[in-house]
């Protein structure tokens, strides 16, 4: 069980996270949704121990110490990487603590196997800088899963991927979560994809949780209007999957046309500093 208790982060004068509390059970894949600047990336970094936060984070009943945490793997949004590192080296570094002057052949074999699972076997010895953005994203996901963490924190892991690979990535994440009773928290913007793959959605806005529950409970037109400032159609397909189709943005003429005042927080100075 991962417990967040009144987690708050202040960056300069801005309160980027404001008392976020939640309990995430093993085996759960949780989507973190919300508009840009809502605090999604900040929450993931705070959970990873990479940002100073007040409040408590407990994993399996034990408070996590500040600083990077072995049991928690965080995959940043940025996929930029040094040109001269090979794909295999990048994945191997997922288990940095096990690497020495000589790399254990068994560990190397495991890394190659992980790459093969993502269809990246042929790229193992290519420089990461020579790969496309989508390929790099898959490599970094392979690195994150290679750590075999109890908690995976993935910041927009499907952002640079085509449809097929978006599905593949989220299926792989779900499979890992199920196989190892891990917890995955995935920041996403594609709400249809989130509804298709996750057990639960946490909706953040202005650094606070605005909604928490199963996709069918959380995703409704009122929430999208209030949090994102959009008018959207939300419809279940025969397969049971929800489809979220944004129709128009509120604010300016859009908001007036809709005859509704969006409950969106005004832009804050920290939005340029804390993507999410």
């Amino acid at each position, binding site marked *: 069980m991962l417990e967040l208790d009144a987690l708050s982060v202040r960056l300069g004068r801005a309160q980027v996270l404001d008392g976020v509390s939640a309990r995430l059970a093993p085996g759960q894949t949780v989507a973190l949704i919300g508009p840009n600047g809502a605090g999604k990336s900040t929450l993931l970094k705070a959970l*990873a121990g*990479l940002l100073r936060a007040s409040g408590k984070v407990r994993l399996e009943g034990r408070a996590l110490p500040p*600083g*990077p*945490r072995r049991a928690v*793997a*965080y*995959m*940043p949004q*940025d996929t*930029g*990487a*040094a*040109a*001269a*590192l*090979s794909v295999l*080296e*990048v994945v191997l*570094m*997922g288990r*940095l*603590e096990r*690497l*020495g*002057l000589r790399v254990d052949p068994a560990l190397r074999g495991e890394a190659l196997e992980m790459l*093969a*699972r*993502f*269809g*990246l*076997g*042929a*790229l*193992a*010895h*290519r*420089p990461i*800088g*020579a*790969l*496309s953005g*989508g*390929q790099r994203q*898959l490599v*970094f996901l392979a*690195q994150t899963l290679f*750590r075999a963490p109890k908690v995976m924190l993935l910041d927009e892991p499907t952002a640079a*991927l*085509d449809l*097929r*690979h978006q*599905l*593949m990535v989220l*299926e792989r994440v779900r499979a890992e979560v199920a196989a190892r009773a891990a917890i995955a928290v995935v920041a996403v913007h594609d709400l249809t994809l989130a509804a*298709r793959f996750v057990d639960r959605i946490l909706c953040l806005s202005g650094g606070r949780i605005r909604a928490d529950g199963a996709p069918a409970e959380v995703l409704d037109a009122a929430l999208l209007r209030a949090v994102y400032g959009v008018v959207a159609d939300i419809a279940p*397909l*025969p*397969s049971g*999957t929800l489809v979220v189709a944004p129709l128009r943005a509120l604010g300016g003429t859009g908001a007036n046309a809709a005859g509704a005042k969006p409950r969106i927080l005004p832009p804050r100075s920290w939005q340029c500093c804390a993507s999410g």
Partner: protein
Amino acid sequence: MTMTTTGAPDAPGEAAKPAPADPARARALRLILLALLLGVVTVTDILVGPAFLNVLDVLQALVAPGTADPMVAAVVNAIRLPMTLMAAIVGASLGIAGVEMQTILGNPLASPYTLGFSAAAGFGAAVAILFGLSLPLVPGLTVPLAAFAAAGLASAIVYVLAHWRGVTAEVMVLAGIATLFLFQSAQSLVQYMAAPEVLQEIVFWLFGSLIKASWFSVAVSGAILALGTLALVPDLWRLTALRMGDARAASLGVNVPALRRRVFVIVAVLTAGAVCFVGTIGFVGLVAPHLARMLVGEDQRLLLPASAICGALVMVGASVASKLISPGAVVPVGIVTALVGVPFLFALILTGRRRYW
């Protein structure tokens, strides 16, 4: 409608291709060839000199000193060997300092020069020469110690500023550049104040010359190089991880500020140990890491020794050139390092190694 994917499809945009061969062996082979090339250049440097000694006599003095001409053996033992070894040690130290500086600052233009260590060493030496300082028991060590102490002062300034404002690459580069200009100005002031004959001595020191090498300087700089290298070994993978950026390295469990502090101190000591005896040597610390990276990639297990060898190669090559430019004389090696190193770099750029290794 359900959406599923099966098996392990190809990566985006990647047609099924056979896996390329593991480049690890090729890279290791390049490292060995580089070491052999260094061996050849090192022997060449010992064979060449302003004394116009017979090459076979010098070889005999190297292989069997007991049977060699005593005069030749004395020149080889007291002058040529220390100079050549010092060139290799200084080059290796600056190569390692350069590659780690570029790694912790995430900046391809970083070198031991960037943070003002070399300028500070020059200032320390210039002050000692200007005021004719002399230590009681070891007068010959006054200038090197003053250079070492000033380089230590420069590193302390950068370290303290980074400690106060955050150990980030940006803060360290800015603090370093400020320190560089501070010590360059102070150095110019000392030169301005100096009498012509003292100024000549200062300028000669600043050129960087292997003439000052001795077995003592070889031992001290060699020990610093060995200890500095050993101190970096436990962090090699963490330094490799840092090449992916601070956030990603931190997400892998690297304490980035602590790593940066630790490596910064090692780089400062390596640079000070290299330049305090021979004077400010430029270019090697900038170019050697790039040559090494092009040949062996980013894995620090290979990149660290490759940078050391490339640094030594440029420095010893420059030493050979410095003796050949003007027969019968030795041009200060600091003047020649760029002349020797730039063609290396041009050749590698022009051969189209765009992706490195």
